[in-house]
């Protein structure tokens, strides 16, 4: 391995840097706050001749994803970036990209959805498309955003599925942190060359893409897609294993933080997991048996593995930075509960749901301390609300 460079970069810069090293054949994108810089910086690389990418500045996100689909179907390594309303406008084409099994990789900066209009972080946009068939990878910080982008290319091309790598809007996208960047040679060797198995421009082996598929075969094709997303779990682990062995940074389907001997646990994704780690450190020094589980992969959902990691807990809190608008819990809490339902008998049934940080509402150490405090009380049998809303005025 070559020497790594240690630099100061924002999340958006880190993702653009990964894209430069990946040097995709095509990037089609439309700018939107707070993801604008990802493609803006990348467009600079194109203009400066640092990459050989065909950059397609389109007139909307719907067109961006449409162009990505065309490029990926033709056999090109294809990337884009967006956020919030942009992701919403892409929604129709996201399903098509996944259904066509196109390995497009997207930088997705988490931002609230309108209405009311808001540019700040929450996970509503990414959760809105959780059933689209895209693999979804969450990043806690700039380093993970960078590492996840490099791994995403490999995952997408092996699984023949599109992948979105998310960062938290502004908190990570605009926050500068210490970043270890691989040498260009190492990064290029890791992502390798893309050799698609089937593609439109292969005249030796002509194929049809996007044909009408009615009652006769639609279900079979969907069944294959379902199997592909199931299989992607192992691919994600294999790619993470190779990345860890080569570069020393370990990744899995989720991260367990101080779970040895833990009795109460928070499950949280993205930048908030980092803040929760600080709270866990403080509680552990006081003898409180607190732990944290941070799902990295939300799609495919690592159901059995998460249930296993939560075995023996006395109380679990799931923190969601979005709501399901189902008059129940947030999306992550629902998935965790479903995972525990199928877990072996005796698994923890005390699961509290916390909705937090909508529209960028600050999440402080004290807020997370309050959750662990609730968990301590719940673990001793005290009744707690099933769903709580952290830091909201009501």
């Amino acid at each position, binding site marked *: 391995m070559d020497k790594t460079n240690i630099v*100061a970069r924002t999340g958006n810069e880190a993702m653009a840097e990964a894209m430069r090293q990946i040097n995709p054949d095509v990037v089609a994108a439309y700018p939107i706050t707070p993801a604008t810089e990802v493609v803006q910086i990348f467009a600079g690389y194109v203009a400066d001749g640092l990459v050989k990418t065909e950059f397609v500045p389109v007139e909307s996100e719907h067109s961006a994803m449409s162009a990505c689909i065309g490029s990926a179907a033709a056999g090109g390594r294809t990337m884009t970036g967006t956020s919030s309303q942009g992701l919403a406008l892409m929604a129709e084409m996201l399903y098509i990209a996944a259904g066509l099994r196109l390995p497009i990789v997207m930088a997705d900066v988490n931002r609230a959805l309108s209405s009311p209009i808001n540019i700040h972080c929450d996970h509503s946009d990414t959760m809105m498309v959780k059933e689209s068939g895209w693999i979804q990878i969450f990043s806690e*910080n700039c380093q993970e955003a960078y590492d996840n982008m490099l791994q995403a290319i490999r995952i997408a091309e092996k699984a023949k599925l599109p992948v979105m790598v998310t960062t*938290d809007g502004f908190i990570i996208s*605009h926050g*500068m942190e*210490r970043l270890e960047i691989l040498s260009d040679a190492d990064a290029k060797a890791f992502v390798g060359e893309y050799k698609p198995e089937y593609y439109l421009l292969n005249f030796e082996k002509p194929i049809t893409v996007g044909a009408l598929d009615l009652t006769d075969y639609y279900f079979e094709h969907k069944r294959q897609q379902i199997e592909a997303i199931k299989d992607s779990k192992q691919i994600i682990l294999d790619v993470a294993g190779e990345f860890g062995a080569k570069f020393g940074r370990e990744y899995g389907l989720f991260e367990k933080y101080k779970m040895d001997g833990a009795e109460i646990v928070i499950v949280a994704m993205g930048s908030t997991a*980092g*803040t929760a780690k*600080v709270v866990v450190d403080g509680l552990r020094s006081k003898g409180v048996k607190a732990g944290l589980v941070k799902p990295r992969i939300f799609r495919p959902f690592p159901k059995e593995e998460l249930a296993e990691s939560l075995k023996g807990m006395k109380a679990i809190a799931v923190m969601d930075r979005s709501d399901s608008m189902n008059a129940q819990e947030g999306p992550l809490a629902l998935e965790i509960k479903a995972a525990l339902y199928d877990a072996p008998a005796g698994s923890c049934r005390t699961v509290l749901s916390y909705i937090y940080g909508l529209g960028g509402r600050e999440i*402080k150490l004290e807020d997370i301390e309050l959750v662990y405090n609730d968990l301590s009380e719940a673990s001793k049998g005290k009744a707690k609300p099933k769903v709580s809303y952290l830091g909201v005025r009501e």
Partner: protein
Amino acid sequence: MIEIRWHGRGGQGAKTAALLLADAALASGKYIQAFPEYGPERMGAPVASFNRISPSPIKLHSGVTDPDIVIVLDPTLMDSVDVTEGMPANGTLLVNIEKSPAEVKVIFGIGAGIKICTVDASNISIETIGRDIPNTPMLGALIKATGILDFKEMMEDMKKKLEKKFKTKPEVIAGNLKAIERAYNEVRI
């Protein structure tokens, strides 16, 4: 871990100052964060930016509410913004102003215990760089006032970075370095 808040007006370089400091701290082997206040960016409106500097990895991703050090790029803000909000009683307040620390304490009613430092960074930047961009010299003043970084190391790193950025404008490099050095020497503590 040290937490810092920069106050300025939109366009004055509060965000750039935080990024510059983070970059300099990183070069000295520290872990860093730098982020602006996330909101609409308007020329002249009060804005803030933040730093965290630590010898170990920084996991915290909430806002900075209790800064150990506060730096004010524009003293006219202090009539309308409580720049000492959340500061601990022994915090450090560094202001770009031609007045002395004692005068600032009286004029703005700064609490006892807070260490006040002043430097006329605007004047320094006009004399050395030719424009009122106080953020670069404030770095020099900050290092003298707090000792958070090694001055010589920082200057060497800054020189390298400026030489890379302003290859064709050697006068900009010299001006900026002079500004930092003067603020380091002239800050009143």
